[in-house]
């Protein structure tokens, strides 16, 4: 049913084959898109067609198939560049996922770090934006420092200022644009300005932002931005590191191998210019084709329409879920600077907290897919004083009926473990 703005969620759902699936004998209610998104037929078919008719290695293969595969692969790079407003395709490095992109950043920026230099991240980061910096700090003697959060789940900017968190020793600041647990949208452009004021490099983990918000790298004010294909309707096996070209050109190689070289000699090698310098070996070719098709699909629906849908369905879900007895929302409770990852804890009527695994399991028996655990953000959970939480996450294909099913399911869960069976 098209809503008044013409956003036709029913028609969109038709494009996603898996959404017709039954779980046991009930229909699938997929509310785990922050974990990975489902794929429209257009993406699946593009990968299929690539393997059936155009498969070849790229760059090094110059025959007709090689030319076709290279054009498709580099064409996908250009689509990504346009989608995020990069200055050009040469600023787009393909990696295997967002985690590799962040490790690429941490290894190459790490090569410039010295003991006493500071790296600033936040307690709400995903492990993929924590561990690479911990490892870089161990390798170099740099010090890792943390943004704390406020009680309503936003970066505690006041405390950071009071602590002089970003200062003349700061060399790297790496912050998520959107929390994958709290849904918080962070003021990365402001933080980037602070980082730049002290000469630090600003890295933005945009894994949860690019799929929804239509990120433009210029507006983020960042120097490096990472994201991942599988959360934005694309395939697994592909991620992106965008970088300002002059910064990329200045960074040393990370992985060595075929395609990233200029001249290899016994006595040493010289390296290709970006982006190829950072793409050792056969790249994710079919995956790039799939990601390109995903971007075409997102553009067709319109990222601003998706953002609007996300805003509305999030607002609806916040109200609907917050009304479940015994439920406590984590993160911002109002749909302002708030994306569609909604985490919470749930207690029975007698006040016993129900473990997320148990919530997830009972919801699953009703076809509802949510995630229970620490969502790869253990420091955040520790900061919140809990071990784990349950997360429902919404996307362009999520309906109000699905949110209703979740809310009803949660009431059922609370009753089940409360003894009202």
């Amino acid at each position, binding site marked *: 049913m098209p809503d008044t703005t013409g956003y036709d969620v029913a028609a969109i759902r038709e494009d996603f084959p898996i959404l017709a699936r039954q779980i046991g004998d009930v229909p699938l209610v997929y509310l785990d898109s922050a974990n990975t998104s489902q794929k429209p037929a257009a993406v699946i078919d593009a990968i299929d067609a690539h393997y059936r008719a155009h498969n070849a290695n790229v760059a090094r293969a110059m025959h007709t198939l090689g030319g076709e595969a290279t054009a498709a692969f580099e064409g996908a790079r250009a689509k990504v560049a346009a989608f995020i407003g990069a200055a050009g395709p040469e600023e787009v490095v393909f990696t295997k996922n967002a985690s590799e992109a962040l490790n690429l950043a941490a290894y190459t920026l790490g090569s410039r770090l010295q003991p006493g230099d500071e790296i600033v991240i936040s307690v709400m980061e995903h492990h993929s934006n924590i561990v690479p910096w911990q490892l870089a700090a161990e390798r170099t003697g740099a010090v890792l420092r943390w943004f704390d959060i406020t009680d309503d789940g936003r970066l505690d900017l006041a405390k950071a200022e009071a602590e002089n968190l970003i200062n003349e020793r700061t060399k790297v600041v790496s912050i998520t644009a959107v929390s994958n647990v709290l849904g918080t949208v962070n003021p990365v452009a402001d933080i980037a300005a602070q980082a730049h004021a002290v000469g630090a490099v600003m890295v933005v983990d945009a894994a949860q932002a690019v799929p929804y918000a239509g990120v433009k790298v210029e507006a983020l004010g960042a120097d490096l931005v990472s994201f991942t294909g599988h959360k934005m309707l694309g395939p697994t096996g592909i991620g992106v590191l965008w970088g300002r070209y002059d910064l990329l050109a200045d960074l040393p190689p990370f992985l060595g191998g075929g395609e990233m070289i200029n001249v290899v000699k016994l006595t040493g090698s010289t390296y290709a210019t970006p982006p190829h310098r950072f793409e050792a070996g056969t790249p994710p070719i079919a995956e790039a084709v799939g990601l390109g098709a995903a971007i075409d699909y997102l553009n067709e629906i319109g990222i601003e329409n998706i953002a609007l849908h996300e805003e509305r369905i999030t607002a609806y879900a916040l109200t609907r879920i917050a009304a479940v007895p015994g439920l406590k929302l984590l993160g911002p409770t109002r749909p302002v600077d708030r994306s569609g990852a909604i985490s919470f804890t749930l207690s029975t009527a007698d006040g*016993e907290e129900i*473990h*997320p*695994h*148990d919530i997830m*399991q*009972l919801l*699953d*028996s009703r076809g509802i897919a949510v995630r*229970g*655990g*620490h969502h790869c953000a*253990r420091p955040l*959970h520790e900061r919140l004083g809990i*071990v*784990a939480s349950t997360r429902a996450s919404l996307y362009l294909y999520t309906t109000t009926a699905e949110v209703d099913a979740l809310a009803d399911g949660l009431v059922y869960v609370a009753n*089940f*473990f409360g003894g009202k*069976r």
Partner: protein
Amino acid sequence: MSVEAMYQEIILDHYKAKHHSGLREPFGAEVTHVNPSCGDEVVMRVALDGDRITDVSYSGVGCSISQASTSVMTDLVIGKTVPEALSLLADFTEMMHSQGRYEPDEERLEDAVAFVGVSQFPARVKCALLGWSAFKDAAAQALAAEGQE
């Protein structure tokens, strides 16, 4: 099977009133085990007299399955010898990896038979085994410590 059937009354009862819960003295060894995908943790102590298990005490956070399984385990192993307990662990582990195709011996496994249904939910097998594997680790360490005395 339905998930409601998986959550047998026995499991929920143990979950709501855990047996032998809390950390007690004396103990021969203490270990901490973690389920990294959810952060669930159990701290477990084992006390021995020779190779006889005189106490198993624990604290931790976890889902109903891991909590109940740990509770059931303590009922089973306290008072037994380490080899007897490890033999029960072997049976329990086999049952948990059977995907529901195991005929548990209720004489031996007592309340633990309730977990045969859980073995049909692969993601939860790890939960059911958390306390048992912590026990195995702690018992081995406690035995080694006994040997040194």
